[in-house]
């Protein structure tokens, strides 16, 4: 079965007792057992829950893995991965790492004597140079944020495995619609299910998927022991969201491409960062690794100062000014003042996060409406200061 059909049917088997065509929401915290000391499929909801298991089955199918685990947030999922490590171990992570993962590695994992080195994941030599004998984990993002860097997943997997390390990939921006990292030899694929999997800005969740049953067992042990599992109601809402995942991401990616092309022609726009544009440095790899789609997220830089850029974000009428992404509603934000505000100014400059940068999460609105809104917002700001 093709991807979209699996998204609808795998893990959504008809309930054998009632014939219900959608998975029931099992709120039970505990389950009756067949006998004293005899265990049924489910015993206690932290250890396993039928609604969560259904979602995990779907995720495993979509990522092409042997199993998946659902967590209460994306950070809980990443934290579970770091719990495979022990004192003295070392992590190599991307230098444009998500801020939450950066904080986890540097301020939480570090307490257990685990160290981290950041490297440019698009530079294989740099990654190789950062790896030490005690490196146990490489952590990359299939699309980096906010500069849309694209790492070579197969090359990273090869280096990691040569050096006896695991490769984990955060696939949140790309989604399994664009790329299934396990197919490139990645060991663990992680999602913030809050974003495209849930898709409606109304769930927090995280997932891990793997293709090695032994690794699945190890991660499950940590999840069960530490307890950050996804609740049944949210599991249901994420499963429901996944049924339209393929449609949403395809539509949003097609719209993002049109928005990127439109922005690239706009005289007020200095540059557009979108891997679908042929001149983006990550384009050849994206074209190779992704299924002819480049995702619903893009950034662009205005010929503008900090205040003007903020004003453009605030002048939109259809976009909502908010961080996060993956919603059916289009979101706009200024990384310098919002998602990356915690970076030191010199670090922002070093990583190319200028004051004029704007990040868009393209929603499901009509693309003509999205472009018209950006057009009026830019026009409004630059006609009022008399410079255009």
């Amino acid at each position, binding site marked *: *079965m093709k991807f979209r059909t699996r998204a609808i*049917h795998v893990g959504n088997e008809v309930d054998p007792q009632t014939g219900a065509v959608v998975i029931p929401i099992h709120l039970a915290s505990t389950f009756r057992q067949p006998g004293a000391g005899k265990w049924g499929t489910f015993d206690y909801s932290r250890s396993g829950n039928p609604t969560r298991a259904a979602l995990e089955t779907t995720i495993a199918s979509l990522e092409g893995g042997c199993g998946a685990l659902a967590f209460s947030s994306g950070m809980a999922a990443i934290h579970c991965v770091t719990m495979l490590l022990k004192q003295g171990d070392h992590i190599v992570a991307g230098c444009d790492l998500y801020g939450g993962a950066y904080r986890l590695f540097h301020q939480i994992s570090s307490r257990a004597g685990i160290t981290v080195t950041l490297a440019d994941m698009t530079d294989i030599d740099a990654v190789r140079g950062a790896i030490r004998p005690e490196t146990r984990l490489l952590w990359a993002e299939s699309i980096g944020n906010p500069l849309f860097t694209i790492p070579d997943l197969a090359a990273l997997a090869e280096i990691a495995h040569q050096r006896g390390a695991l490769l984990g990939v955060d696939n949140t921006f790309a989604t399994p619609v664009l790329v299934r990292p396990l197919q490139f030899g990645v060991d663990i694929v992680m999602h913030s299910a809050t974003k495209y999997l849930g898709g*409606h800005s109304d769930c927090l969740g995280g997932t891990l998927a793997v293709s090695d049953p032994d690794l699945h067992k190890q991660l499950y042990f940590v999840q069960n022991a530490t307890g950050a599992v996804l609740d049944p109601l949210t599991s249901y809402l994420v499963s*429901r969201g996944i049924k339209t995942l393929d449609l949403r991401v395809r539509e949003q990616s097609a719209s993002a491409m049109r928005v990127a092309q439109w922005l690239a022609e706009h005289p007020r726009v200095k540059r557009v960062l979108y891997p679908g544009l042929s001149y983006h440095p990550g384009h050849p790899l994206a074209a190779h690794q992704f299924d002819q789609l480049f995702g619903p997220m893009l950034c662009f830089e205005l010929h503008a100062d900090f205040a003007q850029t903020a004003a453009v974000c605030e002048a939109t009428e259809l976009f909502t000014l908010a961080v996060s992404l993956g919603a059916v509603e289009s979101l706009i934000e200024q990384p310098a003042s919002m998602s990356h505000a915690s970076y030191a100014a010199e670090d922002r400059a070093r990583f190319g996060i200028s004051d004029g940068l704007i990040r868009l999460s393209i929603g499901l*609105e*009509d693309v003509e409406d999205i472009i018209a809104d950006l057009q009026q917002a830019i026009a409004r700001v630059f006609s009022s200061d008399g410079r255009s």
Partner: protein
Amino acid sequence: MAIDTPAQRPPKPHLTPLASENSSVSMQPTSGRGPGTVSVHGGEYRSKPGDAIPDPIFCAATYAFDSTEELLHYVRGESEREEYGRYGNPNERAVERKLAALDASEDAIVFSTGMSAIVGLLMAKLSAGDEIIFFDQCYRRSREFCLKHLSRFGVVTHQVPTGDFAAMERAITPRTRMLVSESPTNPHLTVIDLEQFAAVGRAHEVETLIDATLATPMNVQPLKFGVDYVLHSATKYLGGHNDLLAGVICGSRAGLESVRNLRGIMGGINSAHNLYLLQRGLKTFELRMQRHNENGMRVARFLEDHPRVERVFYPGLQSHPSHQVAARTMHGFGGLISFLVKDADWQETARVVDAARIPRIAPSLGGVESLIEQPLIMSYYSCTPEERERFGIPDNMIRYSCGIENAEDLIADLQQALDG
């Protein structure tokens, strides 16, 4: 404080203002925007409680007033706000505004099911001695409600052949209050000429109702043809995930006022949780319908070309008697298809149903999951062969509701089921 003391101060702004004309909180701009934009933003406020992106779920059964003074404002009709859950709920209002925007209607009223919606409308509009006329392919339970139950209150129901406007006009009397049709009908997918239907109503000063559940507002907006009311079972394409029951009536605010009042008395409302799921489903409405339309067309064409298929009922096919009307009035033809298996008795037909692996055998339609059923067994089992012949339900008929799976998968699955 005397009960007739004039209000000293205007009521404080409410957290979730109800009226779209309230200037303090603006609605998402959707006028003149595309159906995808209306699906996502239609009827929603730009700013929401807590600055949340999605609406919160208001489980409250009742709503508090700050003071007697505020209550007085409300009971005098000087302020619009919530009072008691049966009379309205912020989630209900948000869904109603979105559905009204999608159907290009002034107002919409949601009920707990499609049946609850039509019952609500007819109970509000008809009195003893009044008459109602149905085209005879309308949903069986709607006609049954009129024939078995409204008749107890002295309402007379007439049925005329579907699409026979002359017969409909002949059946109209001075007591006729409502003309009812489905379009497309189920399971024959007959499409009604809505302009003509509305014209008959107008000429005789009788109100008209179209059950457009199978069409959805993506494919046709009946009010634009002059029809007075549109009914949807929101359980189907509007909710779209086979996981909720709901119904809606769209029409003018004046026309629906008595319906809203009656709903407050009869109480066929939705829970806030259900309304939230409906609103969430509507966010992907345009996208899902594009796919249902595309899958419907592709599966119908595949079936029409298959040697084991005797006939396909799908208005997108030129072979369908309603194709001309459908092509003129509909943007797409939906996901529901009926077909006859050639030279098959009921058991051979059932074998095709049982051999299909993707669709589940279940009633209902319009969800992301494809469903399949044999009308003879699912809905008409208790009818006599003569009745089934009259309703046009042969033993070898299969009804297929295309979901949003990949069309290639649905077709390959039907192929193996038919060839097996």
